[in-house]
């Protein structure tokens, strides 16, 4: 009951940012995908092609090749934007508005408060990328519209891009919890997120990509949990 109250509150606070990212991705992703199908018809040749038998391209190639290359940059932008906005909303804004005292004096452990925030952000990413990216993937799979259907790998790569947004969120949280000055070590969390993004996007194999994401999330979460438990508010 206590945790669900915390979670409901966090989800409500995430909602405007989630909706903004969702609408952005839905709007621009749909337009780009639709215009890709129209362009193909007008020009009379396949808009993009990607040999599904040769999927050994780095993850970042998703944004450059393939049928889903149209909405992919928007997914990337919305995921990164959502990560930054949620991190700032949950951990920076509370500091500016000085509500930590009211928020933390609850009959729950501090970790419950932290996890309610992180889980609500995770749900926002899941609901951002999960349905929308699947819809784009499904739409791009129509043979009458696109010559080449996207390989199933592209579906997973879309979720990887969303996971990158979650890593940016964790980096923002880490920076928000740091008491250091902004020009010293405060931004290390975000720096580490950028490092993980570079590593993730340069993997050729999905397995290594997922491993890099899990490692990044694990390292950031351990650090965030430790900082949050001992932080002075």
């Amino acid at each position: 009951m206590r945790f669900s109250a915390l979670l409901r509150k966090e989800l409500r606070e995430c909602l405007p940012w989630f909706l903004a990212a969702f609408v952005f991705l839905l709007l621009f992703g749909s337009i780009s995908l639709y215009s890709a199908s129209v362009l193909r018809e007008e020009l009379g040749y396949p808009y993009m092609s990607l040999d599904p038998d040769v999927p050994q391209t780095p993850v970042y190639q998703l944004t450059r090749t393939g049928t889903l290359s149209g909405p992919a940059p928007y997914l990337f932008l919305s995921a990164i934007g959502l990560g930054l906005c949620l991190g700032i909303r949950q951990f920076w804004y509370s500091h500016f508005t000085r509500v930590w005292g009211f928020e933390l004096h609850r009959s729950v452990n501090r970790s419950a408060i932290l996890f309610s925030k992180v889980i609500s952000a995770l749900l926002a990413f899941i609901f951002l990328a999960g349905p929308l990216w699947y819809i784009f993937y499904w739409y791009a799979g129509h043979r009458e519209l696109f010559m080449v259907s996207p390989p199933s790998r592209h579906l997973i790569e879309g979720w990887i891009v969303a996971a990158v947004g979650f890593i940016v969120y964790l980096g923002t949280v880490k920076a928000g919890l740091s008491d250091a000055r902004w020009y010293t070590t405060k931004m290390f969390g975000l720096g580490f997120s950028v490092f993980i993004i570079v590593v993730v996007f340069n993997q050729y194999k999905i397995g290594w990509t997922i491993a890099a994401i899990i490692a990044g999330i694990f390292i950031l979460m351990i650090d965030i949990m430790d900082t949050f438990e001992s932080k002075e508010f």
Partner: protein
Amino acid sequence: MSEIVLETEGLTKYYGRTLAVDHLDLKVPKGCICGFLGRNAAGKTTAIKMMLGFLEPTVGSGAIFGCSSQNLTPAVRQRIGYVTEGHKLFGWMSIGRIGKFQRAFFPGQWDDKFFADMIEYFGLSKKQKVKSLSIGQRAQVSLALALAPNPELLIMDDPTQGLDAAIRRQFLEGMIQLIMRQGRTVLFSSHILGDVERVADRIAVIDKGVLRASCSLEQFQKAVKKVRASFIGEMPADIDIEGLLHCRRSEKELELVLVGTDEEKIQRWANISKPQKYEIVSMNLEDQFIEYTAPVNHKDLFEWE
């Protein structure tokens, strides 16, 4: 001796090289209303935050209901009501929603009717958004949120700061509602001495991070005295009287602030110094507090209980 609800031992906090709280030894017995007094930047908020485990002491420790401040369990937190400085609440919530949110953390002890009655008493509606409230109204909501779970200990950090006289009175009446429930303990910081005088039965005075008095209000009021003596001839160069805190001289008048000096000793001093006349000036708590924490000759001259 009555049960101690809140206790600190040598509680000390440094921010870098700045000493905010210096070896605070405070005991708050069960059932009392303790005014935690100090000027701005005296260390009240820092001390309260350390007591509630939001700040880590540099040295020393605190305990509430016997549980270390640094590791307050959810069960202990459930017994404590806390009104934050500035009444910072979630702005996007309505009053009704913030009440429901708060209720989830006090299962079995939240009093819905009491909360609704208090909101009505303050002339507010449950539909109003917190962000649309004035600071005075936020203070009222804050108090209702802290009182509705009927906490055994209520800690309030400068709750009447920024409120006008009418709202302050309403706020204090709300506090009295809690006091009327037997066995409840209140610790509230303030620098509005009239409020303290009205409701507190015990005070703790903190000055530049140092606890300078912790006793009953009555004892403090009896102990701090001001003597005004006028002289025709030359005034004595040295003032030799026990408990002297400050001495102000004008052309023909001496003003002595004394702590813990009884009238017999004042009489004895007068017999030796031979003023033309002298009087013990009556002071209210505010005057006494100002004199007691005036930034000269800082010494604890009085043995508090």
